[in-house]
């Protein structure tokens, strides 16, 4: 593709990143603002007290741990469920498909309070006490729909001949799934995992009702609407961002180094090959 339009796309991507990050600057700055309001404005001077508060807040760290455990559980459960759902919707024809699809995506619309309350009541009826496990189930009920939608979009581009080729080579159905279909779906699965993870972290209402006495980060922090949410949460978010950004940087640098080594090796191999041929 030609260079000029590529440049436009690069610029657009840059602008988009700016758009994504501008609000983060606002809220990141708040982590250093000596103001109980989580905002850079009005600026009341530099402070590290929100970081100090964060470090001293044991509940916050426990909540963070809970949050991540719940999110991982949600990812682990909603990936297979969403994928299975997508495959079913993809292979079933006719009216059943439409009904199935509607029932699957409807939970996205369901207000968190409704999911939370209904999950709590239902599992209470079958003698499952509230707790983070219920939060996981409640969250999966609608997060699986995201996975389903992402996988469904990707399934559509799958070349069935590949499945046939694998079967023909003697692979069992499970092997076909693992070696051929899932690798093809992997971009959707990664995106699904990421979206499931972050949606879970985000979740307030469902968790609020189902968590029992445990806290997750969002619930812990955002319960404080009456007294006001303080910038400790900004401090935490900033730290998570920093960790992610550093990981991204390390990955990119390693990749570049790897690529250089790879290229050198390939050139070497080709020279050797050519030398042999002559």
């Amino acid at each position: 593709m030609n260079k000029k339009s590529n440049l436009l796309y690069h610029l657009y991507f840059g602008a988009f990143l700016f758009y994504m990050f501008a609000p983060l600057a606002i809220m990141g700055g708040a982590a250093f603002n000596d103001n109980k309001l989580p905002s850079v404005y009005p600026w009341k001077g530099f402070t590290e007290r929100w970081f100090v508060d964060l470090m001293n807040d044991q509940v916050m760290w426990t909540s963070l741990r809970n949050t991540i455990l719940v999110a991982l559980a949600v990812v682990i459960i909603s990936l297979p469920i969403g994928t299975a759902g997508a495959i079913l919707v993809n292979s079933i024809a006719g009216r059943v498909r439409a009904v199935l699809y509607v029932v699957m995506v409807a939970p996205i619309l369901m207000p968190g309070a409704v999911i939370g309350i209904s999950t709590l009541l239902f599992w209470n009826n079958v003698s499952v006490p509230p707790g983070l496990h219920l939060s996981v189930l409640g969250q999966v009920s609608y997060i699986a729909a995201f996975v389903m939608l992402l996988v469904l979009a990707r399934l559509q581009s799958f070349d069935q001949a590949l499945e046939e080729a694998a079967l023909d080579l003697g692979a069992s159905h499970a092997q076909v799934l693992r070696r051929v279909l899932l690798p093809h779906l992997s971009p959707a699965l990664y995106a699904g995992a990421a979206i499931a993870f972050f949606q879970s972290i985000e979740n307030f209402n469902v968790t609020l009702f189902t968590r029992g006495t445990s806290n997750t980060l969002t619930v812990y922090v955002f319960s404080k609407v009456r007294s006001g949410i303080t910038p400790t949460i900004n401090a935490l978010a900033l730290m998570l961002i920093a960790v992610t950004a550093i990981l991204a940087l390390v990955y990119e640098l390693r990749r570049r180094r790897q690529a250089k080594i790879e290229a050198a090796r390939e050139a070497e191999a080709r020279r050797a090959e050519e030398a042999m041929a002559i």
Partner: protein
Amino acid sequence: MSAGIDLDNVCCDFGTFRAVDHVNVSIKPGEFFSFLGPSGCGKTTILRMISGFNEPTEGVIRIGGKDVRGQRPNQRPTALIFQNLALFPLMSIWENISFGLEVRGVDKATRRKKAEELLKLVDLPGAADKMVSQLSGGQKQRVAIARALAVEPQVMLLDEPLSALDLKLRQHMRAELRAIQKRTGVTFIYITHDQGEALAMSDRVGVMSHGRLQQVADPRDIYNNPVNGFVASFVGENNVFSGTASPDGSGFARFDTQHGPFRARMAPGVTGKNIKLYVRPEHTILSETPAGENSVAVTVGDVAFEGNFISVTTTSDTGAQLVAELRNDGSTKVPATGGKLYASFDAAAAAILPDETAV
């Protein structure tokens, strides 16, 4: 190990369209059998039925004498090379090749070794760690062949495996495939629309048209004694004349055409509306003087050079087109365009055949 395959009155419908129509054929264990036929005649469909991806609408398929209805593709001892190759784009070349072993639980080192061997066999050493997208069309096809060979099946089904290869490589792979087949004794069912390939490689050839099997015979018979006009003209070139036949009872007949009367072979049972006379260009002789019989005065038209032979298109005074093939062996005198010559053929080299098919 190898198994025979029987197709017993096999049909296959897609909706109301019959893609394969009452095909009957017995392929012997260890045989190299080719299906030859024009595009869309149902060759691929037959292969897909044998390997289990389509079920026959009617009829029975037996592999090694056992009815395989209901058996799933991964349970059948067949390996199919797909026409579109169907290589796994997310696996490296060697993983593609060793996939069949992987799913059988073979350990990695062995698989890798086997893959490298097969790569050498298909003339792609050093490609093991490339990705499918890095290969050219022909290279991909060779990987597909290697992948099917890896599982050492009892029946190999090959759907035009060489079509994207260049002549040199194709000839190398032909010989290779043939050698592998002989060595392993595996039954090969080969699909091609390249008659040269079918004739050169196969023990027997089945010629298809519109889902129907027209003739099953060994290559020489197919070429020399086609049962009908379709087979005659699909396999090799022909000069064709329309006319009316009067058999003389001795296996020959007089054939009256608008270019005059000819004489040619005519098998006893031959009937049908559309009877024609077929004679091959290489049996058509150009000379400066007329021959005793079956001789037509012609004007030389296009002279096409095709490598080992030269194809001369001539037109008779009555407007018929006759093509003669001359050997390019140095000694042959190539006629000049516009030259006046006589085209003739031996009665034994020409056959009167029913048209039978609607191609």
